[in-house]
C-alpha cells in the first residue's frame, strides 16, 4: 500500500468515475506487487491480532472448562480446585484427562470428556461420575448439530441432557442404554435421532471406561463409597438433601 508513483496518478481520478484510469494500475509488475502487499498487510494484521488475542482466548476457554466441570457436579459436591487436580490416564483407549473432585481430600467423583459421533461432526461431552459409577451430570460442551433440531442436547435449550443424572451401567440395563427408537430408555427428538443416539452412546462408553479403569481414575484404593446411596442422588444441584448428605461424608 505504501507503493509510490502509480497510485497517485489514479488517486486524482474523480470519485464518481466508475472505471478509474487503469493504465498505470495495469502495469504487469504492479499486479503481483499490490496483491502481495495486501496479503502481507492482512497476514501482518492477523499475526498481530492473534498475538494480542491468544492469551485472552486461552483464559476464556479455561473459564469455559472450569464452568462446564462445575456444571456436571451437584452444588457443594467438591471442595477442591478441579482445574488443578487432573491426571491423564492411558489404558487401551485414547489417553484421557480426568479431573478429580475431592471432598475433604478424598476423591468423591471424577469428571472427564467423551466424544460422540454426531450427525454433523463430533459432539464433545463432559460427564461427572461418582465413586459408584453413577452419572452425576452430563453437559454437551461443543457440537455442530442442526440448529433447531439436534441442539436440544444443550442444557439451556431443553431438559433432555438432565435425564442422565443418577443413571449407571446397571440402571438402566446395558441393552436399554439407547434411544427409544432402538428399544432403549432415552427419548430421541422429533427429526433428530442420530444426535441423541450419539450422546447416549458416548455417555455409555464413558461409563464403561470408568468401570474398566476405575482404580486408575480415582487414584486411590478404589474402595466403594459407603452404602449410603442417597448421597449422590443428583437431580437439581440446589436440592438441600444432596448438600447435607454430601457433608456427612466429611468425617470419613
Amino acid at each position, binding site marked *: *500500500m505504501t*507503493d509510490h508513483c502509480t*497510485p497517485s496518478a*489514479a*488517486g486524482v*481520478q474523480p*470519485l*464518481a*468515475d*466508475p*472505471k*478509474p484510469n*487503469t493504465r498505470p*494500475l*495495469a*502495469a504487469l509488475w*504492479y*499486479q*503481483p506487487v*499490490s*496483491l502481495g502487499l*495486501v*496479503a502481507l498487510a*492482512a*497476514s501482518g*494484521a*492477523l499475526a498481530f*491480532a*492473534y498475538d*494480542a*488475542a*491468544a492469551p*485472552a*482466548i486461552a483464559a*476464556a476457554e479455561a*473459564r*469455559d472448562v472450569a464452568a462446564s466441570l462445575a456444571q456436571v457436579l451437584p452444588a457443594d459436591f467438591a471442595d477442591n480446585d478441579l482445574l488443578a487436580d487432573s491426571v491423564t490416564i492411558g489404558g487401551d483407549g485414547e489417553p484421557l484427562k480426568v479431573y478429580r473432585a475431592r471432598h475433604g481430600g478424598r476423591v468423591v467423583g471424577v469428571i472427564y470428556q467423551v466424544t460422540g459421533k454426531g450427525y454433523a461432526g463430533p459432539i464433545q461431552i463432559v460427564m461427572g461420575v461418582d465413586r459408584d459409577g453413577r452419572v452425576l451430570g452430563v453437559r454437551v460442551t461443543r457440537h*455442530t448439530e*442442526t*440448529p*433447531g*433440531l439436534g441442539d436440544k442436547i444443550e442444557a*439451556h*435449550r431443553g431438559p433432555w441432557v438432565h435425564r442422565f443424572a443418577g443413571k449407571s451401567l446397571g440402571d438402566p440395563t446395558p441393552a436399554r442404554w439407547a434411544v427409544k427408537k432402538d428399544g432403549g430408555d432415552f427419548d430421541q427428538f*422429533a*427429526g433428530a435421532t442420530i444426535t441423541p443416539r450419539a450422546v447416549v452412546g458416548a455417555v455409555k462408553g464413558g461409563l464403561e471406561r470408568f468401570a474398566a479403569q476405575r482404580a486408575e481414575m480415582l487414584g486411590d484404593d478404589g474402595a466403594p463409597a459407603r452404602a449410603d446411596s442417597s448421597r449422590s442422588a443428583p437431580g437439581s444441584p440446589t436440592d438441600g438433601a444432596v448438600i447435607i448428605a454430601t457433608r456427612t461424608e466429611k468425617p470419613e
Partner: protein
Amino acid sequence: MNDTTTAAPPTAASATAASATAAASRWRGLMADGLWNQNIVFTQMLALCPTLAVTSSATNGLGMGLATTSVLVVSNMLVASIRNWVSPSVRIPTFIVLIAALVTLVDMSLNAWLHDLHKVLGLFIALIVVNCAILGRAEAFASRKPVLASAVDALGMGGGFTLALVVLGGVREVLGSGTLFASASLLLGDGFRFLELTVIPQYKGFLMMILPPGGFLALGFMMALRRVAETRLARQRAAAALSGAVGA
C-alpha cells in the same frame, strides 16, 4: 440506481436545503435499494447458502444478519478506501484476502473479548466468509464509490439481508415449531426475553419447515409474494401517473 428515487418515501424531501437534500435522498435511495429494491436475498438472490442454512428460527436469522451487516460495513469501507490503488486484474483476490482477514479478525476478537457473544454467534461468523454478497457489494459498489456512500450501501444491504433472514426464519419457525424468536435472550441478553413467543401452544411441529426443503419452499413463496406486491405497486403508480396527466 436511477429508478430508486421513485421508491423513496416522498415525505420531508422538500423541507431541507438543496445540497443536503441531494445527499440525503441519494442515501435514502441507497437504503431503499438495500432494504427492498435490490434486496440481497429476494432480488439479487445472493447469499442463499447461509440464508437457507441458518433460517430455521428467527433468532438465528437475526444473529446471522447482524454479524453479516457489521462485517459488510467494515469491508465496504475498507475496499472503498483502497479502490484507487487496486489493479482491476487482481481486484477479486485482493478483496477476498481483505474479507477473509477481516472475518478472521472479527472471529478472534469476539472470541477473546466478547466470549459469551462468540459462543452464540461463532457458528455464523465462520459462514460469513462464504457469503458471496460481501464480495458482491465490494465488486459492484465499494470498488467504485467513496467511503461514506459505501458504508451507507453496506448498512442498507445488510439491513435488507437481516430483514429477509428474520422474516424467513420467523415464517419457518412459526410453521415448523410453533414459536417465534425462541432463545432470543441467548443472543440479545435477558432484556429481550419478551421477544420469545409461543405462537401455537401444544404444537407438534411441522418438521419439514425446519429442514432444508422447508427453507426452499418458504423462500420461494416469499419471493412470489414480493413479486405480487411489486406488481401491484407498479400498477398503482402507473394509474396515479395517468390520472395526473389527465388532470393536467
